[in-house]
């Protein structure tokens, strides 16, 4: 039995406010009122998910449009780790 890959999403556009800060990114999450300080590529992943929900592979495709991304398999694995971090922070949810 195979499982469909997880789909990730943010709570609609405009729920996240980002501001640059000395090479880092400040993230204000409107639904929770929590501020995060994040390093690349977390802000870019959020930006990609603001366009639409997607699987890790779909997010990777979106990211590769504007960024230099290395070996596909390693990149996908790394992206899944970042997505898990964003889920644990409450910034990204697993879309149903």
């Amino acid at each position, binding site marked *: 039995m195979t499982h469909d890959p997880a789909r990730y999403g943010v709570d609609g556009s405009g729920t996240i*406010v980002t*501001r640059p*800060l*000395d090479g880092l990114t*400040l993230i*204000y999450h409107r639904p929770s*009122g929590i501020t995060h*300080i994040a390093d690349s590529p977390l802000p870019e992943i959020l930006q990609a998910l603001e366009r639409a929900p997607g699987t890790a592979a779909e997010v990777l495709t979106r990211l590769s449009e504007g960024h230099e991304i290395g070996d596909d398999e390693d990149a996908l694995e790394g992206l899944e780790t970042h997505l898990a971090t964003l889920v644990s922070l409450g910034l990204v949810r697993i879309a149903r």
Partner: protein
Amino acid sequence: MKHSFGVAIGPASFRIGSAWADPIRWLKTLYSDYPQPDDGVADFTVLLEPAGALRRWWRPSIGLGGDYRLPDAAPLALRHGLLAAEMGMNIQMALGWRRHLLIHASSVEKDGRALLLTGESGSGKSTLAAQLGERGWRFMGDEFALIDLESGSAWPFPRLVSLKNAAIRALRAEVTDPERFGPTLRETPKGDIAHLVPPRQAVSRMRDSATPALLLFPRFGFPDDLRPVPEGEVFIRLTQASTNYVALGEAAFEALHRLVTTVPAVAMDYRSGEEAIATIESLWAEQA
């Protein structure tokens, strides 16, 4: 309440009610140059109440009450009544103020520009601001800097300066008018404390804001050192130094981001107040 007193400090105003006359007498003396609350209505009420049924007379001790209170605040002896009133006002500001981003910092002003000093208790921020206030700067406050959510300006909150231990001696050497000092309160939970009335212009200009121009993180008792503080670290330290950052939500996020990205920040370790003041004057001259 049997005894009461009203006062406006910067944009905030207080009514202090007390079961005893003595704390109110001191407040009236030390705050005699301050205005009353606009239209007679105070933003906050502070109550100095007996800490238990018999505590009005027998080993009198003060329980702190008011609009906002800390549930686990320990009672204070009646002889520390002035400290209790000041703590009560601080608690109201820390827990209840919503009109500005409130940062636990002292501040002074020169030429319309503000220097903010923030750090742990014992960092010397209060003493340095009080000393600068006697040396050509306008004292704006020793406890809270109020950052305007729209304009980013710093507003004064020039309550009495709370001098602790060695700072009492340092300011007694600087301030010649004995009338500006309150009683020395011995053996408080924070050691010996004396309150100092800020210079006259700090009170007369308590409603003049200033543009933040330099943010300093002083640390007393370490070998002299100066280092720029990266924006990320400044942001985190200021969210920790603010009592209402979370409550104010996105408005505070934007105000703090603007403050952090427009005002240079420097950490200053020092071992002598005089050297620290010379360093501050020199840093300020560089910024001008």
